């Protein structure tokens, strides 16, 4: 019979708020007997014992090399440490070994170290935070390279007018002529297919398939017939797309579709018709805008939560910077400026700029700030403003309570998660949380305690729902309750595995009972992103919050400008949670023909310390009829319109690259200043400037900052 059980957190995880609660769900309490997330999203389903899981570690005192060889543990270092822990060479390289954020690959046995008293204690004191990403497919793991000769930092003056554009995305149709020169050579200087079948060039980065411009040019030449490049053949020969071969090689690649997110974005960010790349002093210089592109693993794009993208994103940023230096060395010039486009987002998270990924990105930008070779990272405001995945709860006094109705869809083949974030402060038992399954009974309430974990199911070790608490240490300094559900449809049971029960779909009620929060202290609730990504087969289904007071549209059919005060579900607070950091540039979307901010474009949270909203808006729709922005389809000569803040980000990336090429500033402050100046100078009738929470400093493209349309054919 399904009922609520009390489970002790896995030994060693007890009270360890530094471990992402998702890790405990995947490796600990949620999966007593098994190796973590299966590819298809069931916690507890079996994974191969030898699978390597990427971890993002915040190591304030230990450097990457010392972590890799276990030296920091001294005599406590287990004999098999290096069999269970690897740090790819890039992480230990001179450029990045100073970072407190280390990406390590560990086998499941690594998590057993925490159960040993002394060793576990030593690890807990070394690791400030730990998050996990989707396990690597075996075929993608590259043979580790020994730390080679230290590559020198390029010195001297940068090549005038040259800016490296980094693109981190999915479905990169890199052979499209928008990324080729007039002479037919690729402008993609380096490409990393993170879930490609491993090759030697990927050794430095630990996994995937790394191709240089030379590699791509050689395939382009071999795939040219009767003067035409057969782009399908290029993707086959580079193994960027394969329908046969090994399991990893045959993974579904969205570059084989007519339209892909990555190609569209890469075109808006750095695509030109052959011969059209602008040089420093007018005219064309095809070498002036080299592209370094990273294709994220397909599994991450299909997967359940944005948490699984962190290590891949940080690895991607480091790859782009590493290769930008290689380009500079090859040209005999100094370090080159870099602008990186990352048009990805999720829904749940802290929204206060203190997530591991945000801090790691801020660290990268801060380090090169004010130099001749800055790094800028452009992120989207997100498209989730109308998804009803966020609620703000306030209380009239002690014992006041609120019930949030969480509607979970049937046929959701991935896990669903709901995060409840408390204000900053010590875990003094400020609220108590209880959960009621559809048709089930309220479970006992859980206060701000890491023990027990509450699990609902037939038996404690095969839970369908879990409720747990962690207090995330500074700089976050906040408590978080995590409610996790198994998929509502279990379609994929490996042979020999005991079939997992699906969790019931329907309305799960979450009761938040105030104990000691003041009237001005809010509890923020977010449902984690769980939809199907563009171009991927239907898999996850987005759950949402039901609220009778929420006004979706007014009588005139329009989305209201402001939230109903009686509603718990809010549009405010829907800014992409990886876009609340300090130095990244965050772009929302507006409609180019009527200048109105897009209804879907993420809106900031007034309580957020580092930003109230995006920095600026850029067009994300041509008009209310012609939705989306036109840019390249996957095959040369094709164009598609895709809608969303991804496109706005990519056009801004392009504009920032142009500014850097002209020696102008392109950082967050500079872009805000451009937007503000354009708002101030704009004439004619148009809706007034959106609020800071929705539109930041203003709309880019009212003046000359962004040529919209086919961006380089104006």
């Amino acid at each position, binding site marked *: 019979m399904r009922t609520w059980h009390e489970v002790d957190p896995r030994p060693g995880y007890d009270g360890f708020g530094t471990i992402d609660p998702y890790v405990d769900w995947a490796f600990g309490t949620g999966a007593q007997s098994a190796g973590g997330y299966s590819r298809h999203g069931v916690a507890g389903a079996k994974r191969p014992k030898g699978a390597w899981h990427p971890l993002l570690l915040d190591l304030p005192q230990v450097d990457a090399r010392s972590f890799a060889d276990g030296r920091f543990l001294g005599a406590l270092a287990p004999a098999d440490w290096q069999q269970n822990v690897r740090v790819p060479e890039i992480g230990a390289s001179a450029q990045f070994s100073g970072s407190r954020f280390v990406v390590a690959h560990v086998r499941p046995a690594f998590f057993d170290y925490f159960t040993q008293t002394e060793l576990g204690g030593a690890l807990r004191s070394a690791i400030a935070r730990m998050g996990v990403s989707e396990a690597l497919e075996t075929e993608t793991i590259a043979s580790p390279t020994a730390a080679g000769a230290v590559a020198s930092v390029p010195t001297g003056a940068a090549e005038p007018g040259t800016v490296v554009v980094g693109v981190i995305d999915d479905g990169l149709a890199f052979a499209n002529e928008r990324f080729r020169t007039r002479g037919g050579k690729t402008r993609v200087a380096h490409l990393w297919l993170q879930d490609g079948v491993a090759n030697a060039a990927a050794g430095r980065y630990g996994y995937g398939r790394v191709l240089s411009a030379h590699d791509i040019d050689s395939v382009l030449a071999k795939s040219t017939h009767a003067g035409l490049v057969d782009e399908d053949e290029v993707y086959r020969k580079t193994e960027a797309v394969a329908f046969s071969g090994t399991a990893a090689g045959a993974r579904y690649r969205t570059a084989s579709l007519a339209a892909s997110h990555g190609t569209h974005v890469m075109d808006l960010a750095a695509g030109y018709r052959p011969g059209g790349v602008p040089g420093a002093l007018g005219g064309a210089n095809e070498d002036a805008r080299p592209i370094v592109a990273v294709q994220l693993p397909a599994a991450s794009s299909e997967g359940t939560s944005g948490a699984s993208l962190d290590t891949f994103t940080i690895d991607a940023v480091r790859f782009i910077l590493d290769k930008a230096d290689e380009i500079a060395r090859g040209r005999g010039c100094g370090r080159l400026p870099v602008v990186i486009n990352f048009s990805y987002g999720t829904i749940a998270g802290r929204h206060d700029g203190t997530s591991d990924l945000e801090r790691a990105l801020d660290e990268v930008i801060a380090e090169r700030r004010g130099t001749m070779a800055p790094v800028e990272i452009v992120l989207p405001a997100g498209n989730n403003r109308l998804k009803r995945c966020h609620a703000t709860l306030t209380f009239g006094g002690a014992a006041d309570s609120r019930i949030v109705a969480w509607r979970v869809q049937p046929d959701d083949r991935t896990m669903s998660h709901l995060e409840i974030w408390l204000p900053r402060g010590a875990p003094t038992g400020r609220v108590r949380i209880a959960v009621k399954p559809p048709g089930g009974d309220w479970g006992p309430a859980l206060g701000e305690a890491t023990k027990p974990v509450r699990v609902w199911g037939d038996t404690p070790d095969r839970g369908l729902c879990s409720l747990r608490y962690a207090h995330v240490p500074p700089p976050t300094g906040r408590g978080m309750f995590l409610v996790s559900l198994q998929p509502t449809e279990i379609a994929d049971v490996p042979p020999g595995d005991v079939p997992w029960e699906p969790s019931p779909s329907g309305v799960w009620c979450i009761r938040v009972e105030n104990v000691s929060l003041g009237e001005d202290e809010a509890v923020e609730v977010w449902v984690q992103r769980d939809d199907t990504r563009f171009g991927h*087969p239907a898999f996850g289904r987005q759950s949402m919050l039901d609220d009778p007071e929420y006004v979706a549209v007014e009588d005139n059919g329009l989305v209201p400008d402001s939230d109903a005060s009686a509603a718990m579900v809010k549009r405010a607070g829907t800014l992409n949670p990886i876009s609340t950091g300090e130095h990244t540039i965050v772009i929302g979307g507006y409609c180019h023909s009527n200048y109105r901010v897009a209804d879907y474009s993420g809106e900031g949270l007034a309580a957020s310390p580092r930003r109230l909203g995006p920095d600026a808006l850029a067009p994300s729709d041509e008009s209310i009829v012609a939705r989306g922005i036109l840019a390249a389809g996957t095959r040369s000569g094709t164009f598609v319109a895709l809608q969303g803040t991804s496109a706005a980000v990519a056009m801004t990336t392009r504009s920032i690259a142009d500014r850097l090429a002209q020696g102008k500033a392109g950082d967050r402050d500079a872009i805000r200043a451009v937007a503000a100046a354009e708002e101030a100078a704009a004439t004619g009738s148009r809706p007034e400037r959106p609020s800071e929470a929705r539109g930041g400093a203003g709309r880019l493209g009212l003046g000359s900052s962004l040529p919209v349309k086919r961006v380089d054919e104006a």
Partner: protein
Amino acid sequence: MSGLKAESIESGMSGMSGMSGMSGMSGIPYPVHPATTAALLTCRDGVVGSWRHPSLADVRTERELGKPDNLADWGARERFELFFFEIAARVTFSIGCDGAIPTSAVLSHLDMSVSPGGAASRLVPIASFIRPTPANFLEQIEIVNNYAALRVDRGAEVLAQMGISEAFFGSITGFQPDRTPKSWELALTVLRTAYYLVMRVKHALACRRPHEYSPQLQPMIAAPMHGTLPSGHATEAFTCAYVMWRLLKAAGRPPIWGEQLMRLANRIAVNRTVAGVHFPVDSAAGCMLGLTLGEYIVARCTNSSEYTAWRFDGTRFKGDFLWRALLDIEKGRKPATADGAAGPFVESAGPQSLDPAGRSPILEWIWNEAVKEWKDTP
């Protein structure tokens, strides 16, 4: 009224691939509405006058017996049957055996002298096929499943290509019944020949379809009711693409025209795998047969008497279908070997030479007329 009747019979077959274009070649000299027939009856009564016996002077000179140029006088539909006869009557089928065990399906040219005292008849090979084993097909099923991911993206094409639509070839070459009628007749002849011959090979090899290997493939269209290998779509598409390319080449067009036609044929073939009704190895066999038939038909059409016969061994095929393994548009046909295979899955069975006495002036006539349509356009 006979034209109407024939039309209705043909339209009953329109679901067959390769036949859908027949409507563009109606065989009816002018539109005959049923009401027109009644009007013609009364109209004649009003016009006919008293009967007068005609003299030979009223009639044009008798046509020369057996002269190919007489074709110009026939209707397009009638010519189509003649061209089809010229090819079909000379291609025959047999089963190749190892001792008493049947091992292969063989298409051959029936080389015989039709004049008294000519040489004894003989079979000249065109193409032969060894079918893959069930284990070979089982390896392929993963690829079919992977391609299912493209179904939504390719849905419109899959449906539009259920019968091979000439629209796709027309979109590349600009050929259409009003503007290039002789090329149209030739293309339809080629498509029908390919369809009829591949059906004979499919029947003999009798290979099971992907959905018979897995209940999870769920093809997006009804699976055809015949064997899977060779793919009929691949055969027809590559035969048509090859003949169209040779036609354009004869008219002086550069290789990019052939390149695009082959890419189209490949797309049509692969779309059948996307739909879930064909293995990649089916497309490889169909591509081989299509190119070989194309070469054979062009040889018959150009009185060259020379072509190359090819062998397909499905047990040596591995991986995905790649048409470039079989053909280089500038250098020509080539043997093909899959990675890690014991030997080539496509190999030459040697150059063949036909008895020049068996040449077909009828096929030569349509070829020359068709080439003119591309050469002499203003």
